[in-house]
C-alpha cells in the first residue's frame, strides 16, 4: 500500500475519493446516514439548550448579565490565558518533537515517550501537586504554568508524528538550493507542520476554555470556573447560563479560526515512490543544553507531580481506605470502558460517511460534533440535567445519561482516529472481496472493520483518557452513590486533604499511563494525517 492512500486531511478537507463525480449511496449506506444525522442532531442538544435558555432569559436580562464588569474580568483572564499558553505549548511541543525526531539527540527514543507522558497526569492533579509544593501559586501566571505543562503534549504528539513522516526530499532540495539549517527549518519544515500545529493549538485552546479543577485550585477565574461557581450557588441560574453562552461563542470563534488557519494546501505526498529516511541534524555542542532543557521540562511536567503524589501517598500509607478507592477505581474503569466503546460505535457511521461519501453534508454533520465537544463538561452537564429532569425524568441520574454526555464530549476524539483508519481500508479492498464472492456485509466486516480496528483502539484510548480525567459533567450527572477517581480526588483536595487525595491521583495516573502510551504509538502509525 502506498502512503497516498492513507492521507486523509485531519478533518473537513475532501479526501481524494470525493473528487469528481459523487457516488450515490446504496440503501445500506442511507441507513448509516440516518444514524449519523441522528447522532449529529443529538449532539447539538447542548448548543440548543444554551440558545434556548438565552431566549427564555429575555434580551434585557441577558444583556445585564453578560455586559457587567465581572464578565469583563473573566474575558480578560480567559483571553490572556489562551494568548500566552497556546504559543508556549507550540514552542515546547514543536521544539521537543523536532529535537526528538530530527536531531542527533541522545536517547531520543526515551525522550520521545517521556515528552508524551505528562498527558497521563490530569491537569487538576498537576495543579494539586504544584500548589502543595509551592502554596503561594495563584492567578494568571500560575494558570499559564500549569496549563502549559499539562497541555504541551497535545501539540507534541501530532508534531512528532508529522515530523517523523516528513519527506526529507524537500529539505534536501532546500539545502541544495543553499538554505541553512535554521532557514530550512522555518521555511520548509515548519510550514509542513501546519496541520499538526493548528490542530494541536485548537485542542490546547479548547482545553483551556473547558478546564475547571486546575484553575479553581490556584484561584484563577475563567468562564468555566465562574460557571461552576454559579452552578454551585444556584444549580441552574440564569447568570450561569449567560456565562455559558459567552463561552460557546468563544468556542465557535476558535473553531472558525482553526478552520481558517489550516488552509487548503495539500500536504500529503502524491503518487508512489519511496520516502527517504529523515535527516538528523547533529547537535554537537548543543547536545548538553538540549538534554538539560528536556530534562527540566519533563521534571516540571511529569516528575514533580508524580513525586508529590507519591510522597503524599506514602505519608498516608497505612491509613489507606482501600474499601473506598477500590470501588472508585472500578467505577472509573467501568465508565471509561463503556464510554469508549459506545463512542466508537456511535462515531462509526459518521466517520464512514465522511470518508466514503464526503460532501458538504457529511462535513456539516461532523462540525456539529466538534461544536459540542468544544463546550466544557459543565455546559453539557447543565443541558443534560435540565433536559432529563423536564423531558425524560426516567433517565435522570442514571449511568446512561452520564455515558451519553461522555459520548458527546469525546466523540471527535474517536472520529479523528476512525476517519484515518477507514481511509487506510480503501473501498477497493472491500470490493475485491465482494467480487471474490463474499456477500457485501460479510466483506465489510471481514475487510473494512478489521482494518479499522487499530485506529478504533487508538480513538477508544483517547476517549477513555478523557473520561478518566473528566470532572464537571461527572459531578453533575452521576447516579447517586457514584464515586469516580476524579470526583473523589476533587472532594478530598478541595478540603486541602492532600494525603487523602493522593491515592486517587496516583490511581488516575496509573490508569491513564498505558492509554497514553497506546495513543503515542498509534499516532506514530497514523502519521501523515
Amino acid at each position: 500500500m502506498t502512503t497516498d492512500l492513507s492521507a486523509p486531511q485531519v478533518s473537513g478537507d475532501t479526501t481524494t475519493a470525493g473528487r469528481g463525480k459523487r457516488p450515490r449511496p446504496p440503501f445500506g449506506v442511507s441507513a448509516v446516514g440516518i444514524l449519523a444525522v441522528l447522532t449529529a442532531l443529538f449532539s447539538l442538544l447542548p448548543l440548543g439548550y444554551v440558545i434556548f435558555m438565552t431566549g427564555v432569559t429575555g434580551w434585557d436580562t441577558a444583556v445585564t448579565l453578560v455586559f457587567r464588569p465581572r464578565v469583563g474580568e473573566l474575558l480578560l483572564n480567559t483571553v490572556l490565558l489562551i494568548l500566552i499558553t497556546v504559543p508556549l505549548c507550540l514552542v515546547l511541543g514543536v521544539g521537543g518533537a523536532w529535537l526528538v525526531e530530527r536531531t542527533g539527540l541522545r536517547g531520543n527514543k526515551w525522550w520521545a515517550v517521556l515528552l508524551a507522558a505528562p498527558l497521563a497526569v490530569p491537569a487538576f492533579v498537576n495543579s494539586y501537586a504544584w500548589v502543595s509544593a509551592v502554596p503561594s501559586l495563584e492567578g494568571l501566571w500560575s494558570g499559564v504554568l500549569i496549563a502549559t505543562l499539562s497541555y504541551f503534549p497535545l501539540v507534541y504528539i501530532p508534531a512528532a508524528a508529522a515530523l517523523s513522516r516528513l519527506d526529507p526530499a524537500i529539505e534536501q532540495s532546500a539545502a541544495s538550493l543553499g538554505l541553512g539549517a535554521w532557514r530550512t527549518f522555518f521555511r520548509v519544515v515548519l510550514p509542513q507542520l501546519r496541520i499538526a500545529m493548528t490542530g494541536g493549538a485548537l485542542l490546547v485552546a479548547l482545553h483551556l476554555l473547558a478546564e475547571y479543577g486546575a484553575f479553581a485550585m490556584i484561584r484563577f477565574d475563567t468562564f468555566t470556573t465562574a460557571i461552576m461557581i454559579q452552578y454551585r450557588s444556584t444549580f441552574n441560574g440564569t447568570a450561569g447560563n449567560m456565562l455559558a453562552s459567552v463561552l460557546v461563542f468563544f468556542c465557535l470563534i476558535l473553531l472558525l479560526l482553526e478552520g481558517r488557519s489550516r488552509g487548503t494546501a495539500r500536504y500529503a505526498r502524491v503518487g508512489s515512490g519511496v520516502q527517504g529516511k529523515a535527516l538528523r541534524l547533529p547537535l554537537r555542542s548543543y547536545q548538553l543544553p538540549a538534554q538539560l532543557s528536556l530534562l527540566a521540562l519533563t521534571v516540571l511536567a511529569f516528575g514533580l507531580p508524580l513525586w508529590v503524589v507519591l510522597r503524599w501517598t506514602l505519608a498516608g500509607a497505612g491509613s489507606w481506605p482501600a474499601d473506598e478507592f477500590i470501588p472508585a477505581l472500578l467505577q472509573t474503569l467501568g465508565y471509561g470502558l463503556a464510554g469508549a466503546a459506545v463512542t466508537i460505535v456511535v462515531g462509526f457511521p459518521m466517520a464512514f460517511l465522511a470518508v466514503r461519501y464526503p460532501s458538504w453534508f457529511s462535513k456539516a454533520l461532523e462540525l456539529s460534533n466538534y461544536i459540542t465537544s468544544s463546550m466544557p463538561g459543565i455546559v453539557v452537564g447543565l443541558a443534560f440535567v435540565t433536559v432529563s429532569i423536564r423531558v425524560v425524568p426516567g433517565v435522570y441520574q442514571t449511568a446512561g445519561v452520564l455515558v451519553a454526555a461522555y459520548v458527546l464530549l469525546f466523540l471527535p476524539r474517536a472520529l479523528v482516529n476512525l476517519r484515518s483508519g477507514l481511509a487506510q481500508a480503501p473501498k477497493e479492498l472491500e470490493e475485491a472481496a465482494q467480487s471474490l464472492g463474499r456477500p457485501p456485509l460479510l466483506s465489510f466486516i471481514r475487510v473494512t472493520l478489521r482494518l479499522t480496528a487499530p485506529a478504533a483502539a487508538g480513538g477508544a484510548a483517547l476517549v477513555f483518557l478523557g473520561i478518566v480525567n473528566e470532572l464537571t459533567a461527572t459531578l453533575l450527572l452521576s447516579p447517586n452513590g457514584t464515586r469516580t477517581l476524579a470526583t473523589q480526588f476533587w472532594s478530598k483536595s478541595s478540603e486541602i486533604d492532600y494525603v487523602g487525595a493522593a491515592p486517587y491521583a496516583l490511581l488516575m495516573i496509573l490508569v491513564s499511563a498505558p492509554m497514553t502510551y497506546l495513543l503515542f504509538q498509534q499516532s506514530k502509525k497514523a502519521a501523515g494525517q
Partner: protein
Amino acid sequence: MKIRSHALAGIALAATAALGLSACGGGPTPAASGSASAGGAGSGEITVYNAQHEDLTQAWVDAFTKETGIKVTVRNGEDPEMANQIIQEGAASPADVFLTENSPAMAQVENAGLFADVDQATVAQVPANFRPSTNKWTGIAARSTVLVYDKTKLTEDKLPKSMLDLANPEWKGRWGASPSGADFQAIVAALLELKGETATKEWLKAMKDNSKAYKGNSTAMKAVNAGEIDAALIYHYYYFGDQAKTGENSKNVSQYYFKNQDPGAFLSVSGGGVLKSSKNAAAAQEFLKFVTGKKGQEILQKGTSFEYAIASDVPANDKLVPVKDLQAPTVDPAKLNSEKVTDLMTEAGLL
C-alpha cells in the same frame, strides 16, 4: 460493595441507554430506570442528599444502618446546589432526606413547599432556638462565624469591632473569604436579615474591592497561616479540625469571635428535613430522629467535624467556646434568603 455492583449494573445499562438516546435524536427511550430503583421504592432504602460534611454524614449513616438495617444512599453536593436541584426535581426527586451545613438552603426548599412536617418526636429533641418555628425542617448542628487572623502580625485590639468594619479602607487587600461557598453565603444571608438590603449591598461592594476570594474556607485559613492575608472570615471548626490533625495550616492562626450580637457572631444552623415526595417517609423520619437523637449528637460531639452538637442535651465538644458565650445575634433560620443573596453577590461581582 453494594454500591459497586449497583454501579456496574448501571453501566451495563448505560451502553444500551446511550445508544437508545442517540438513536432517538433527543427523544430518549425510558430505558435505564436504574436510578428509580436506587431510590429504593418500598424496599425501605432511603437516599440522602447531603451537603453536610461527607465524613460526618457517613458516620451517621453507618451507625444508623447498623442500628436499623435501613440502607442509605448518599449523594454529596453543596447547600445551594442541592437545594436548587431538589426544587428542579420537584415531585420526581429521588431524595428522601436533605441535610445541609446552613439554613438558607433549607428555607429555600421549605418556601418551595417541598418539605413534609418533621415528626413530633424529633422536634421534641431539638431546642426551639435551633429550629424554624414552622417545624418543616430541624436543626441538626451549628457553626459559629469567626475571624481567623495571623497572630504573628496582629493582636486582638487591632482587629475590627464588627464584621461590617472589614469594609473600611484600612482593611483593603488584607482579608479573605470563600464567597462562592455556602458557608459564606449564609453569613451574608444573616447580614441581609439583620441589616437590610442597602447595607448588605454596600458591604458586598466594599468586599469585592477589599478582599481576596479563596475556594473553600480551609484554603482561606491556609492563606492566613501562610501570611498571604491578615485575616479571613470563616467558620470556627476549620481551626479546631486542623489543630486536631497536624496543625500545619493553623500554626500562626488565632480565632477572633465578634460577639455582641454582631452579624459577624452569626451562629449558623445546619438543617435536616424530609421531602414530601419521599416514598419511604417513615424510614426518612427515622433517620432524622436518629441524627438529632442522643447517639447521632454524640457522633457529632466526639467526631472530627467540631461542629456544635445542639440537640438531645448532648453538650458541644469541650474544645469549643460554649454556645452561650458566643453572644450570637438572634436570627430566625427560616427567614434566611439564599436567592436574594446570590443575586446581590452576583451584582457585586463576587460570583
